[in-house]
């Protein structure tokens, strides 16, 4: 009840100020009247009584003030007054206000955007029950992850004890036909426990059974909620109906709940049993991903020991010749594994943005400090007139908070734009990019940062301005002497320069390594080459010969397109994230023992290597006569030849590739970067497309031509469709796009780093400019005397510039040391560039000095124009 009264009375005062004031005045007036009446009763004459009564009561205004300040609403009132006053002061110096709020907006906005982008990717748990128990089982070759094999999955699921469920998956992109135009869908072929690993069951229907996951098992499929609602029109009786996928009917047995997202491929819309074919001996092909759900209470370490033991035992027993002691079998957190590729880049960017925020804060503090110095006289006067220290501090804090609030509001706008930009800039493989959005948490982060910033930047100048002796300050105001505050500001500017230099070094290193990366010789000519993927589906390709015939005819048709100068098909395209590896086995020979090497397998049509421009080093190319039925032949890459045969001649020797072979080596060709620009692993075997026992239904076409590549694409597509109009063509891209995309993460980090470094450089320059121009203002009189005593303009300019150079120099030394210490942190993003590289360090330091010089020049020139007469007369 009393709280209600408190609120009522307070609000009444706030909103009906006049009535409340009147009430108080009436009461006071009555008090004085009664007091006077009492004096009259004691025998004083009315005038004297009135005088005495008023004297007893004291100043009515201050009594009113005292009574008013008792209520909570007075805090709001003085707060509002402070804000109004602060706004008026800020409007009075638009330049200062603009620079400060903009600096804060950039700092806060960038930080908020980055935090909101990075948090969901790295830290928000995967959207599955008990996501902390989800793990990936991986093979690690000295830090490089390899795809898993079915044989080991089989061994783990029978012999390892750490898992509740274990599954392997493989990408599957079936073509859906039947109603409307054919669609190529994203899906996964999964072993039967996959959905149990994720811990999500179909909302309608059922999960896969173990018996369905066998070779030649039933064709069944589970579909996503999105596919069911979209393409399948939310048919409530969908269970038991069939979908035509790649020309076969698949029975729909389940529909996943809305919002379910596949961990391995967020775009996946349907899942079918893997039904792995062990009979052909391909169980050692590295083309599966292994995921697991740990038993409760089993840690990553214990599980790793478990699978490492099983893996080593199985390999040494069954495949001693491929056992490589450098291969570790590991269990890793699934979330960590999914974000493994981007984690270093993202953490680096977070580090960079924190530096930018720091610089922004230092800059704003500096500006406020400078302003505090300029306003010393004002504050001294106010203190002399009776404003308490706490009142002055509060006033200054209010000003800082107002700046922070405006800066923060702008910053949130910057963050909203920034998040969009980050998503747009993000590398194509960025996991969970769909989870990036400005959300409530981020706004909270923004607000928190803003408030802290306001208090942080407010407190220093506030203390500074109120510490000193009013009298001295009033006098100082008129004498314009230089105070010791310059030291503090100098230190801040030097700190700013140091921070900016750390960022500059980082982006310099990234830039150099990116230049080096794109200069890498990938083993073929990337320029002016068009690629597209052709997928075959339907029963007309049941016969292997039909597949080979299609590619041969399509290739002839493409070559007949005017402008096309060379063309070929391959099962995997370099630098396109295709990854098809097999063991290449060489039998023992008199001069060397048997050995198996992991190699990339390419089944190609004649003309493929020639189109790519991969050089033939010895032997012959694959030709049209190397077809099904003719003697099995292969070309191998130079590095494989070197690994196996050293200096000896590999021609006419034989190798087995996985389940197939033996192939006779007829040629040696140059190495090609398959996985990425940075990875030079080049062991490869090229086979004629007809000589692989399971012809591939999906191949990539590469072609070169005259004229615009964009014009060739439709013509090449029509040429393929002239052979069979029902086959989807996807991934149409130029080779240079594919190359650029493999370096996407590095470029992403580089772009953001460069933006941040530029911002930091600008802020540092603003800081140097601010301090120098403030100091020139304060020293106008001194400069006037100097030039009156005969100092030349050059000398004055030199004096100001050398002051700036000293600040920059100190900052640069500290910054270089800090950069040398911290650049190790981005080592994993660098390519053939050491973290401490003198050239980069020197270049960016030079850049910094140039910018600093420009920032010095304006105040220096102004100082040199100081008119001695004016300056001395000014006070």
């Amino acid at each position, binding site marked *: 009840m009393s709280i209600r009264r408190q609120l009522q009375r307070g609000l009444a005062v706030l909103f009906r100020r006049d009535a409340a004031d009147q009430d108080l005045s009436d009461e006071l007036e*009555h*008090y004085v009247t009664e007091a006077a009446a*009492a004096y009259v009763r004691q025998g004083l004459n009315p005038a004297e009584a009135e005088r005495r009564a008023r004297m007893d009561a004291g100043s009515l205004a201050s009594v009113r003030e005292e009574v008013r300040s008792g209520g909570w609403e007075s805090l709001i009132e003085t707060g509002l007054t402070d804000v109004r006053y602060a706004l008026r002061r800020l409007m009075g110096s638009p330049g200062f206000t603009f620079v400060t709020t903009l600096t804060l907006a950039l700092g806060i906005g960038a930080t908020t955007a980055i935090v909101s982008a990075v948090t969901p990717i790295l830290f928000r748990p995967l959207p599955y029950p008990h996501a902390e128990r989800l793990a990936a089982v991986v093979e690690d070759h000295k830090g490089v992850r390899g795809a898993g094999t079915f044989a080991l999955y089989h061994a783990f699921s029978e012999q390892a004890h750490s898992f509740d469920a274990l599954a392997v998956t493989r990408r599957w992109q079936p073509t859906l036909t039947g109603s409307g135009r054919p669609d190529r869908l994203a899906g996964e072929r999964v072993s039967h426990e996959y959905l149990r690993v994720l811990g999500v069951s179909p909302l309608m229907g059922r999960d896969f059974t173990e018996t369905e996951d066998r070779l030649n098992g039933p064709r069944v499929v589970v579909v996503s909620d999105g596919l069911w609602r979209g393409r399948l029109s939310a048919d409530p009786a969908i269970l038991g109906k069939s979908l035509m996928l790649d020309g076969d009917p698949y029975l729909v047995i389940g529909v996943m709940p809305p919002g379910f997202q596949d961990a391995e491929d967020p775009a996946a819309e349907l899942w079918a049993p893997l039904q792995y074919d062990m009979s052909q001996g391909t169980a050692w092909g590295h083309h599966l991903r292994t995921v697991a759900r740990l038993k409760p209470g089993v840690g990553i370490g214990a599980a790793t020991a478990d699978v490492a033991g099983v893996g080593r035992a199985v390999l040494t027993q069954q495949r001693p010749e491929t056992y490589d002691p450098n291969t570790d079998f590991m269990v890793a957190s699934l979330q960590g594994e999914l974000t493994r590729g981007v984690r270093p880049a993202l953490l680096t960017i977070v580090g960079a943005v924190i530096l930018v925020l720091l610089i922004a804060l230092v800059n704003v503090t500096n500006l406020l400090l400078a302003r505090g110095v300029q306003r010393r006289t004002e504050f001294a006067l106010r203190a002399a007139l009776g404003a308490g220290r706490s009142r002055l501090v509060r006033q200054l804090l209010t000003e800082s908070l107002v700046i922070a609030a405006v800066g923060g509001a702008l910053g949130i706008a910057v963050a909203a734009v920034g998040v969009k930009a980050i998503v747009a800039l993000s590398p194509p493989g960025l996991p969970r990019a769909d989870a990036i959005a400005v959300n409530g948490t981020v706004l909270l982060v923004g607000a928190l940062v803003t408030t802290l910033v306001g208090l942080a930047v407010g407190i220093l100048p506030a203390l500074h301005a109120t510490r000193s002796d009013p009298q001295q300050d009033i006098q100082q105001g008129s004498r314009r002497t230089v105070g010791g505050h310059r030291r503090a500001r100098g230190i801040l500017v030097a700190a700013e320069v140091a921070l900016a230099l750390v960022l500059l070094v980082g982006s310099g290193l990234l830039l150099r390594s990116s230049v080096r990366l794109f200069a890498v010789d990938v083993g073929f000519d990337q320029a002016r080459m068009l690629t597209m993927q052709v997928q075959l589906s339907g029963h007309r390709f049941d016969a292997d010969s039909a597949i080979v015939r299609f590619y041969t005819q399509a290739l002839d048709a493409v070559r007949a397109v005017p402008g096309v100068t060379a063309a070929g098909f391959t099962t995997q395209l370099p630098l396109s994230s295709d990854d098809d590896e097999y063991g290449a086995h060489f039998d023992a020979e008199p001069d060397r023992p048997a050995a198996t090497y992991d190699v990339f397998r390419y089944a190609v049509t004649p003309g493929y290597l020639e189109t790519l421009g991969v050089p033939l080093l010895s032997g012959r190319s694959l030709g049209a006569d190397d077809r099904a039925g003719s003697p099995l032949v292969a070309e191998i890459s130079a590095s494989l030849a070197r690994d196996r045969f050293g200096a000896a001649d590999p021609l006419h020797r034989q190798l087995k590739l996985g389940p197939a072979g033996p192939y006779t080596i007829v040629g040696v060709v140059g190495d090609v970067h398959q996985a990425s620009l940075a990875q030079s692993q080049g062991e490869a075997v090229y086979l004629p497309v007809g000589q692989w026992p399971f012809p591939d239904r999906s191949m990539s076409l590469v072609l070169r031509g005259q004229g615009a590549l964009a014009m060739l694409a439709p013509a090449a597509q029509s040429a393929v469709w002239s052979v069979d109009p029902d086959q989807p063509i996807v991934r149409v891209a130029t080779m240079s796009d594919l190359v650029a995309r493999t370096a996407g993460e590095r470029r992403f980090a580089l772009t953001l780093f460069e933006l941040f470094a530029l911002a930091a450089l600008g802020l540092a320059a603003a800081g140097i400019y601010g301090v120098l121009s403030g100091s020139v203002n304060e020293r106008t009189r001194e400069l006037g005397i100097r030039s009156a005593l005969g100092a030349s303009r050059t000398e004055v300019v030199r004096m100001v510039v050398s002051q700036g150079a000293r600040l920059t120099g100190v900052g640069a030394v500290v910054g270089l040391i800090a950069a040398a210490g911290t650049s190790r942190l981005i080592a994993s993003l660098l390519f053939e560039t050491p973290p401490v590289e003198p050239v980069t360090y020197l270049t960016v330091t030079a850049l910094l000095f140039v910018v600093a010089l420009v920032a010095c020049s304006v105040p220096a020139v102004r100082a040199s124009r100081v008119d001695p007469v004016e300056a001395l007369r000014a006070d």
Partner: protein
Amino acid sequence: MDEPNTDVIPGTLDLLILKTLSLEPMHGFGIARRVEQISRSVFKVNPGSLLTALTRLERAGALDAEWRVTGSGRRAKYYSLTKSGQKQLEAATDDWTRRASAVARLLRAEG
């Protein structure tokens, strides 16, 4: 030169007001005068602290306030004790008596 200190003992102004109003509703000056008379001019209350305290007590619900016409025909704001004010007075009186007698005992022991 040294006048005797007539300031109200810190923390007791509320108690004095409540006690005074427990006799009859009164306006601000009436309260001040009554405190001065009964304390035989040991305590003088200045209007600033008095009106601040009255406003605070009124808001806390210990007092009610209303404008009335006095016997001499002037409009005055009269304060009266509420039930909760009565309880507050009793508690404060007990508290004060307990403490004051403790202080008195201590002073006697010293002497």
